[in-house]
């Protein structure tokens, strides 16, 4: 899975596209892993721009849980922003809105995480 990245403030904004379902969850996690390394205390906060994500399944959410766990162990900061309406509902129903800070815009996420 291709992730586009950009710097905004002192954050790294990572934007996946498509579906993070049973077929794509491993590829998503593999693509995300390199950016998690620097997401640590004194490192680079990570913002996942989910505006291009159409759907995320349980396996995809599990990949997000593993990412959140790694970042927490490293004392880093990670958040998601720009959820599409369907993905926002999936976050709320699965209670992943309690695992991740969820922001309406990337700017709002940068303002908090910077």
């Amino acid at each position, binding site marked *: 899975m291709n992730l586009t990245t950009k710097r905004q403030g002192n954050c790294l904004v990572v934007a996946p596209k498509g579906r993070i379902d049973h077929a794509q969850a491993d590829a998503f996690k593999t693509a995300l892993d390199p950016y998690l390394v620097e997401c640590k205390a004194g490192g680079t906060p990570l913002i996942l721009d989910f505006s291009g994500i159409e759907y995320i*399944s*349980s396996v995809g*959410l599990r990949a997000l849980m593993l990412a959140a766990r790694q970042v927490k162990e490293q004392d880093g900061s990670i958040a998601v922003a720009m959820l599409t309406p369907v993905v926002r509902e999936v976050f709320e*129903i*699965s209670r*992943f809105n309690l*695992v991740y800070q969820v922001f309406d815009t990337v700017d709002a996420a940068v303002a908090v995480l910077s």
Partner: protein
Amino acid sequence: MKVRFWGTRGSIPVSLTANDIRGKLIAALTGAAGRHFDNQNQIEAYVDHELGFDICGTFGGHTSCVEVDIGSQEHFICDMGSGARPLGNAMIGKFGPSGQTYHIFMSHLHWDHIMGFPFFAPIYIPGNRIVIHGCHPGMAEAFRRQHSAPGFPVDFASLGAEIVFETHEPGQTFEIADLSISIKEQIHGGNSYGYRFEHAGRTLIYSTDSEYKLDQIAELDKTVDFFRDADMVIFDAMYSLAEAVSVKADWGHSSNIVGVELCQLAKAKCLCMFHHEPAYDDSKIAQVLAETRRFEEITRQESPLEVLSAYDGLEVSL
């Protein structure tokens, strides 16, 4: 095939408190404020159709006990949670005190699944036959130990009914009175077992106390095969997905999200959420039900999957 739920709560029985009842009454009266009811029918229509089930009813508090009724002379029951007490009394009322055969299928031997057995009245009455089916080698010992001093005043050896233990192997399929039964091993502390019941073209899955590891694809595929084309899947949806893959991982339970996904893959017709978290009140369970129905709607690809939340007293005809 009819399915009757006598106990649907996970881990430990719960009951409504005085405050819970007061809250329901206040909500019902608040909804009725300013309205006029001319007769009993209008009152009942208001209660039954305008109040949510979390206000006008309760999901109940007995632990796991489900009756599978195929209209045969022999009776079929899943687990002996505390719901076994009202079930036993109902059976005696319906079929008489003795001369009955009860087949009990055990998911596993944890306390909440055996605690109703000492209160299942048919076991005390000579002339009844109780056949306890399961896959755990320590099944008989678990029942005997519970039914002995100092935990219980009546020793197992003094029970009036004939009690037989039949140990099966997971993967096995067998028949009793035209009911086909298949068994699948599940992930739970000390293992648990799911049952697939088939009769007259109808299929019921009883799968409680089961965790589904999302990185174990082959095992998930086996579960989908086990659930395949079921008319109803009774499914342990105790936790949210976030809990099930984080703080409560390896606790042996699953989530509503995974239940919907597995049933959709299996093309099952109905998901019945079961083994409710004892910390959840009626409004919380109703909220989870509404959210799960919404999740099914936004992920639907082919035929709709009906989503229910089991409650003590629920009867479903498949």
